[in-house]
C-alpha cells in the first residue's frame, strides 16, 4: 500500500541529491520548480492544521465541554484573520495588519516573556550542585550570567575574559562534537527515508 509513496520519496530525494552535483541551469531550474511545489504543499499542510484546529474546537463547543466559550474566541479569531487576509490582504491598513500589531505580536512576546519568571523559580528550586558534573554546570552558568552583563565587570574585571574563554574552548569543543553528531544523524535519517527504510512519516497503514 505504501510502495507508490515510497517510490515518490526515493525519486524526489535522489533527484535533489543528484542536482547538488549538477550545475547545469536545467537541473537548477528543476530544483527551483520542485521546491516551489513543496512550498505549495506546505501551504496546504497549514490549511490542514487549521482545519484540524477547527474540528477540535467545534467538537468542544458542540459538546459544551469545559471552557467551550473560549473555543468560540479561537474560532472567531481564526475566521476573522483568514477572511480578512484572503479578501483584504495583509498590508498596513488592513484588519489583519491591525490585529497582528494589536494581538498577535504582543501575545506572542508576552507568552515567551513569562519564561523569565519560571526560569528564575526553577533555578532556585532545582538547580543543585548534587555531584561534580552538576557543580561544573552550575559554576559555568554563574560565570556566564555574570560575565555577559555589565555588572559582572564591576564584581571582577576578569569575568568577560573567562566567559569568552569558556565559550571559545570547552563550549566550542562540545558543540562541535554535537554538531557533527547532529549532522551524521540528519544524513543517516534522510538516507533511511529516501531508501524507504524509515517509513514512520507515512503513518500507519
Amino acid at each position, binding site marked *: 500500500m505504501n510502495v507508490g509513496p515510497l517510490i515518490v520519496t526515493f525519486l524526489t530525494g535522489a533527484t535533489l541529491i543528484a542536482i547538488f552535483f549538477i550545475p547545469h541551469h536545467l537541473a537548477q531550474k528543476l530544483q*527551483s520548480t520542485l521546491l516551489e511545489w513543496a*512550498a505549495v504543499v506546505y501551504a496546504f499542510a497549514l490549511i490542514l492544521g487549521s482545519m484540524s484546529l477547527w474540528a477540535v474546537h467545534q467538537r468542544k463547543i458542540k459538546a459544551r465541554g469545559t471552557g467551550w466559550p473560549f473555543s468560540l474566541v479561537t474560532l472567531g479569531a481564526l475566521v476573522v484573520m483568514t477572511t480578512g487576509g484572503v479578501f483584504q490582504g495583509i498590508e498596513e491598513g488592513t484588519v489583519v495588519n491591525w490585529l497582528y500589531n494589536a494581538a498577535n505580536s504582543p501575545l506572542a512576546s508576552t507568552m515567551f516573556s513569562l519564561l523569565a519568571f519560571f526560569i528564575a523559580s526553577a533555578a532556585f528550586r532545582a538547580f543543585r550542585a548534587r555531584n561534580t558534573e552538576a557543580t561544573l554546570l552550575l559554576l559555568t552558568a*554563574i560565570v556566564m550570567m555574570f560575565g*555577559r*552583563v555589565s555588572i559582572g565587570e564591576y564584581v571582577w574585571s576578569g569575568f568577560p575574559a573567562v566567559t569568552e574563554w569558556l565559550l571559545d574552548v570547552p563550549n*566550542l569543543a562540545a*558543540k*562541535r562534537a*554535537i554538531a557533527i553528531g547532529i549532522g551524521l544523524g540528519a544524513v543517516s535519517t534522510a538516507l533511511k527515508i529516501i531508501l524507504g527504510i524509515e517509513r514512520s512519516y507515512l503513518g500507519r497503514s
Partner: protein
Amino acid sequence: MAGPRWTDRLMGIDRRFLFIVIAVAVTLPLLFPVNLPISVSPRVRAAYETIDAVPNGSPILLSLDYEPDVMAELQPMAIAVLRHCFRKNLKPVVLTLYPAAPGLIERALAIASEAEGKKRNVDYVFLGYKSGSQAVILGMGESIRGLFPKDFWGTPLDEIPIMKGIDSYAGFPLVVNLSGSKIADYYIQIAHTRYHRPLVLGSTAVMATDYYPYLSSKQLLGLIGGMKGAAEYERLIDIVGDARKGMDAQSLVHVVIVALVLLGNVAFLSSRGRGARPGGGAS
C-alpha cells in the same frame, strides 16, 4: 518534635514571591537607569568590523528572520545593523523567511531609515516574505527575481536601481542573517558553504553558544548574540536603543537569579549536611 528548618521554609516559599522579586528587579532599573558601561565582546566586534569593511555604496543582503516572540533580542539588533549599513552608504537588500516578520521589519526599516535620512528603493529594498526557507535560500543562489519579482510594496525589481545587475548571491559581498531559528544553519549550509558568500550572523542568546564551531571554522565571520550583543553593537555605532536601555535591568536580574541559585544551594548543602531530605520541589 522540632519545627520546620529554615531550609524547608526557604524551599517552601511561594513562587509568586519570587515572581514579584523578578518583576521589581526588571522594573526598577528601567525607571531609574544607572547606565552601566557596556564592554564589547570580540565576536560582536568581528561582526561590526566585517560589515564595516564592505566597500561604501555596495549592496548587502540582509535576511531578517524572526517573529514577535524573539523580537526583543533581534529587533534592536536589526535596527542597529541597518543604521550601520546606512551610515556606510551600503544598500541593504532585505528579505524575510518568516511569515509573521514583515510587520516587524517594516517598522525596523522605518525607524532606521528615518534616523539616517534614507529612502525606500533608493537606499534600501525590502523584498518581503517568501515561504520555503531552504528553498528560498537555495533559490537565491540562482535567481532572486524568480523568487521575488516585486518588492514588498509591489514595485518590480527591474525598476529599482539598487537591484540593477544583481540577481543572486554573487552580487553581494556579504550576507547578514539575523535569525531566531534553524534558518541560520541553512544560510551557513547554502549561502556560505555552497555559494561561498561571507556570512555574519545575529542570533538569539539561546542559540548563540551553538555557533562557536562555525566561528572557529570561519564559516561565520562574526556573531551578535541576544540583547547583549545588540547592546554592544549599539555601543559600537554610538546609539542608545532599546537593547542598551535594557542592560541595567539585565544586570540586576542576573544578580538576583544567581543569588537565588546560591541561596538554594546553601539550603540544599545545609540540609544534606544534617542528613535531612534535600530541599527542592516543583517550580
